[in-house]
């Protein structure tokens, strides 16, 4: 297999299709048959839709063409790291011991040891290896939780993705350590990167997962990730997504979660930096009495753009969902929030709550927020609300009249606004670290750096605000 990208100046979609046609056997060489079959279905779909564009209703407010029309390189094999890997992926948060999975440019790094089985039975590793070692599990869930035809990004991912993360928590097992997926993009050229995660939680199990998307240089990249999560009966799942990519890059992140009876999930999507981000989060509440917390915080500036599309599908009675996204937008940053709540006819006693709050620091920042509620059951409690505002000027004067500088007063108010989301991080050392990062971000001191974002800046040095935030 030659490892050179196609060099002709053809469009990204054309290039991908050509790769698919020429190298299908290579792309699917690690597959189980069902995965190969899905590739063909997905490619057929992609050939009819292509990448989404502004004329698609659901992409109207995000100019994704700005990225899909760029020229990217796409590799069918891992490339050699260009710098010291150990150092890049080191992520030592004090008192926060995680199982680290390192992915470089979309490829699973620990190549010698691609599947780890912990003493308690938790399995994690590379998806392509999992197809060899756990074919039944992959077959049972892969492509079943996500709708592979929901848009061109999901289709092309399903058609061509070759690697990603597999996690399996067997029935009754509670994973003690958080599993942390660190995904770095680092290459001295523009890359289109795809990866696929399959996370399976058995009955009565528990897992918390962190998913860090970082870039550590300033080349344009476009990352297309699809994650499928199955949460079995009475299982509990937490997902923390940290997004810190450079101002040129794009990230399309599609997360599909299916919940069985009495299960709970909490997702917290924390966006610190990225040129353009699209987060699709789809939660199917399939079993009774399940609960979903879907939370997010976005802190954007310059010309950055974020688009959060949240789909909560109440398909069973007695379920509840709590959706809350907060954003602070500076400069010419723009954001989109669309919250879809779908309550099926039989999903009586549904309780669904949705909220999106925004602060626009400058008149040039924009937000487009919209709820979409489709309710077919009659015994339902559903509420939604959205706010868009500036920093409270009364509060600003009150703080300043006590001697607090206008800079610190702004920070206090912005931080107070964000704290609401940060405080819902249930892993304390992680909460503290994110807290530090938010303060840093709000002061404009968090940038794309050389390492895992949690490690950004000076990890040895505790980060201090002028203000003692721990007392909040």
């Amino acid at each position: 297999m030659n490892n050179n990208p196609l060099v002709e100046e053809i469009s990204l979609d054309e290039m991908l299709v050509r790769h698919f046609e020429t190298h299908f056997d290579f792309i699917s060489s690690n597959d189980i048959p069902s995965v190969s079959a899905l590739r063909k279905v997905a490619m057929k779909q992609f050939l009819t839709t292509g990448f989404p564009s502004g004329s698609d209703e659901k992409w109207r407010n995000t100019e994704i063409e700005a990225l899909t029309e760029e020229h990217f390189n796409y590799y069918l094999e891992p490339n050699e790291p260009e710098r010291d890997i150990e150092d890049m992926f080191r992520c030592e948060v004090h008192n926060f011991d995680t199982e680290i999975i390192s992915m470089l440019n979309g490829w699973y790094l620990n190549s010698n040891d691609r599947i780890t089985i912990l003493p308690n039975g938790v399995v994690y590793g590379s998806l392509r290896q999992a197809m060899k070692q756990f074919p039944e599990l992959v077959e049972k869930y892969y492509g079943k939780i996500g709708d592979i035809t929901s848009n061109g990004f999901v289709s092309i991912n399903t058609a061509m993705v070759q690697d990603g993360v597999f996690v399996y928590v067997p029935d009754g097992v509670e994973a003690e350590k958080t599993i942390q997926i660190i995904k770095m993009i680092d290459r001295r050229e523009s890359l289109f990167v795809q990866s696929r995660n399959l996370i399976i939680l058995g009955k009565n199990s528990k897992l918390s997962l962190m998913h860090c998307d970082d870039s550590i240089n300033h080349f344009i990249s476009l990352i297309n990730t699809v994650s499928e999560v199955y949460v079995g009966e009475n299982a509990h799942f937490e997902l923390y997504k940290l997004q810190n990519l450079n101002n040129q890059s794009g990230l399309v992140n599609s997360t599909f979660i299916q919940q069985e009876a009495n299960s709970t999930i909490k997702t917290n999507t924390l966006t610190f930096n990225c040129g353009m981000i699209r987060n699709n989060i789809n939660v199917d509440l399939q079993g009774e009495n399940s609960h979903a917390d879907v939370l997010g915080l976005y802190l954007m500036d310059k010309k950055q753009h974020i688009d959060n599309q949240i789909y909560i599908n109440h398909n069973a009675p007695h379920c509840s969902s709590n959706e809350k996204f907060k954003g602070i937008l500076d400069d010419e940053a723009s954001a989109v929030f669309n919250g879809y709540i779908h309550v099926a006819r039989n999903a009586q006693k549904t309780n669904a709550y949705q909220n999106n709050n925004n602060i626009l620091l400058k008149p040039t920042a924009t937000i487009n927020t919209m709820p979409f509620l489709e309710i077919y059951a009659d015994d339902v409690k559903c509420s939604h609300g959205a706010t868009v505002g500036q920093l409270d000027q009364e509060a600003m004067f009150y703080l300043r009249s006590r001697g607090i500088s206008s800079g610190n007063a702004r920070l206090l108010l912005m931080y107070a606004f964000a704290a609401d989301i940060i405080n819902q991080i249930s892993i304390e050392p992680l909460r503290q670290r994110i807290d530090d990062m938010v303060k840093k971000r709000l002061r404009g001191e968090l940038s794309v750096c050389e390492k895992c974002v949690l490690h950004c800046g000076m990890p040895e040095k505790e980060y201090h605000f002028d203000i003692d935030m721990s007392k909040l």
Partner: protein
Amino acid sequence: MLLNIKSLHVAINGKEIIKGLNLGVNQGEVHAIMGPNGTGKSTLAAAITGREGYEITQGEIWFKGRNIIGMPAEERANEGIFLSFQYPVEIPGVSMTNFMRTALNAQREYRGLPSIPAGEFLKMMEEKKNLVEIHSKLTNRSVNEGFSGGEKKKNEIFQMAMLQPSLAILDETDSGLDIDALKVVAKGVNELRSNDNAFIVITHYQRLLDFIVPDFVHVLYDGKIVKSGGKNLALELEEKGYEWIKEQYQATSEL
């Protein structure tokens, strides 16, 4: 003179509210300002504390020998000016503790002092809380959020006690207070009162002045101080209302 206001004119949205006001306050003095609703008392307080949107069209405000017009609000605060708000602002998500510590450290930094050690700070919080008889754990709550009207006013005096200003302006700190709370507020003021600082007490009621005895009473009307006197003037106003002041004022302004 600690504060010296000379022929001050203040406009809001182009409308003149303060129309040539003179007021001198020395260290050690308590000045009461009374006057009908809407005559510019809070506007004067806003102008002294540097609130944006209050345009000083003419005049000077001298504080500790500096003309403070144009000085940012936080700098005035750090110079020692404090305002007890007529309507204290609720700030969800910012704890009282964090707020006070930030404010105190800003003041100390301004004065070239190091940050206050945590232990000392907490001790001080406790002490001042007791002074104003705040019994609840107010301090861990967000600034003024969900406080009752009375608690908000006590909280203003608490902050004053923490920051120990050299000029405190109390804007209707007594309104809405029951008699016990009123005494607490007065106690807070009297405790701080010394030969080095001064108070401007804006009030509609003589009652507060029984507890905080003023050296001077001024009547603000139509954006000016139209009458000044000793503490007995407050008693007279309580008894007779403002009609006679208005009549006197109109008579003189017609001259």
